[in-house]
């Protein structure tokens, strides 16, 4: 299952998280309804090798952000394990076991919400250093802040300003400066560019690639944008209703998508290369995660679904390119034709 044979930096297996959305006890009693558990993450396995980037893609509600939070200890898993260089993190919350946690940091989606608006930038960037005690001396800390600000493309003088004095892209740079201030080895990036304009998105993506090269960082990258994911990732995992449905090297996913859902995503992404493409759009929406369809969650939207798909959840099996969770792939009912590639050839 591991992309490489050497020991991975992060190893996630059987990760589960459910939320209790049940009605109050009295209502359940009267309406004779069951407890309602939402399985936001339902048995996710992947590993990330040092220095590589794994991306998780999927539509809203697929559980990709929950995975990020579970790994960072922001919420406790209901089951499964998360190992960072062999250290089990699943039962430890954020910030607690400092030695390992210091080596993991996170970049958030919303540059407007991820910086405390009442704090000056220098204080924001210095907080992890202070908290983890990497730079106990305030002056040294400030010098480090100035260095980081310049490193991410801002000026040392910007440390005295408040976040609202910066544009979205600049704020995301501040966020990155904070994230790398404790010299972490692993960064979770939860849609770091989805709130940014396209021209700024490129700046941030380039900065992140640069950081990875210079600092040898390992990324878990969460996004709904396949094109962005394509640019940044080594491996890509596609999630649907709490489960990984396909995991493969980036190039393989785009060239030879296995799972029907991966194919659907690739088909529906608006693409500037596809001027006035006109084709039938697949109908249907992501079902309510409270009441997911039985068997393969994707079967109601899948053209290849048969009786087995409706009844039995497929396993996460090895495929030609990686892993996929699909009976049709397993049974070879799906031809590995790459319509996309064919289409793309037109351009």
């Amino acid at each position: 299952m591991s992309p490489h044979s050497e020991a991975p930096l992060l190893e996630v297996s059987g990760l589960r998280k459910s939320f209790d959305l049940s009605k109050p006890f009295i209502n359940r009693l009267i309406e004779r309804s069951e407890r309602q558990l939402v399985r936001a993450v339902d048995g996710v396995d992947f590993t990330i090798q040092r220095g590589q980037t794994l991306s998780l893609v999927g539509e809203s509600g697929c559980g990709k952000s929950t995975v990020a939070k579970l790994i960072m200890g922001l919420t406790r898993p209901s089951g499964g394990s998360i190992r960072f260089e062999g250290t089990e993190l699943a039962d430890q919350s954020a910030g607690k076991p400092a030695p390992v946690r210091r080596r993991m940091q996170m970049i958030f989606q919303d540059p407007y919400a991820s910086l405390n608006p009442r704090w000056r930038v220098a204080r924001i960037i210095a907080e992890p250093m202070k908290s983890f005690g990497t730079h106990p001396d305030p002056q040294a800390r400030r010098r480090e802040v100035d260095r980081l600000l310049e490193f991410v493309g801002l000026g040392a003088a910007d440390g005295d300003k408040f976040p609202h004095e910066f544009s979205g892209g600049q704020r995301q740079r501040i966020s990155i400066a904070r994230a790398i201030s404790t010299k972490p080895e692993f960064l979770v990036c939860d849609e770091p560019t989805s709130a940014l304009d396209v021209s700024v998105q490129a700046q941030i993506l380039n900065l992140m690639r640069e950081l990875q090269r210079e600092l040898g960082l390992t990324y878990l990258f969460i996004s709904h944008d396949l094109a962005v994911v394509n640019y940044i990732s080594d491996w890509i995992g596609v999630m649907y209703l709490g489960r990984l449905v396909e995991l493969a090297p980036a190039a393989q996913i785009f060239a030879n998508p296995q799972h029907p859902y991966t194919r659907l995503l690739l088909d529906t992404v608006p693409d500037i290369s596809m001027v006035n493409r006109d084709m039938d759009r697949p109908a249907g929406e992501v079902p309510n995660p409270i009441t997911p369809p039985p068997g393969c969650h994707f079967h109601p939207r899948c053209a290849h679904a048969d009786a087995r798909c409706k009844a039995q959840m497929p396993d996460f099996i090895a495929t030609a390119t990686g892993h996929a969770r699909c009976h049709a792939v397993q049974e070879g009912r799906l031809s590995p034709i790459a319509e996309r590639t064919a289409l793309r050839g037109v351009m």
Partner: protein
Amino acid sequence: MLGFLIRRIIQSVIVMLAVALIAFMMFRFMGDPVNSMVPEHATEQERAEVRERLGLDQPLFVQYGRFIARAATGDFGLSWRNARPVSTLLAERFPATAELVLVAAVLSLVVGIPLGIYTALRPHSFNAQTLQFLSLVGISLPTFVTGILLILVFSVWLGWLPSFGRGEVIDIGWWSTGFLTASGLKALILPSIMLCLFQLTLLMRLVRAEMMEVLRTDYIKFAKARGLSDRAINFRHALRNTLIPVITIFGLQLGGLIAFAIITETVFQWPGMGALFIQAVNFGDVPVMAAYLVLVSFIFVVINTSVDLLYASIDPRLRVDDAGPAGGGH
């Protein structure tokens, strides 16, 4: 809906038990009840007998249980001030307060809501700005000052309206009403104006704020973009969404009216429960205070519960029996 109802009722019962506990504590700790019951020169023996007779020698929770059992039947004992049954006192006073509060509530609704709508729709007009300022004056004027001024002008200078009391009342069963006589109606005017003024301005300001909030929403913008008439937008779309939360406000407001009636009744010598309560506070008349507290709490709880139920039945989003959204729309 049934589940919601049952939960609200359980909550209400807990609230009432807590209020009863406060009332009970008042009995136990605000002066020894035995002292008020035995002659001054009573011996310790006689005191102990009274204690036993009243059950004061039993554990506290037993006493509490008995207190609740008696309270549930409306038995709060005798007023320490005039040795009459507290339940009778309150029953005598209840109609006066109820009628006053009713008239004030209707007045504040009938005047407050239209003014709130008006000022929300024309926020920059001179009239609306003036009203907005006046409403601030309204909530800044102490109600007793308003009452004094009303008496001074309408009773003393102009001599038009009575300055105290309910005028003539007519008994219908145990209920005494001032609605059926001219003097009763006249007597209602000044007190109800005084009582409603604060609530009226409050209601007006709340309706205004709420409506302006609604008028900024996307669905109003979208309604405008569809070319709907101002009338349809303001009254069909905006007003409905405004008035749903106003129901809750009105519930709270009824409670506020009952409480503020204390001041009005004091100023206008209105023979209601509030005046009784103030006298009881002044005299340390615990049974009356406790009973008033329990009765008023009960009224509040009933009002709040009905308002919540009403709210839930009016707002389509809260109708629990409907099916949820078909897909994962969030």
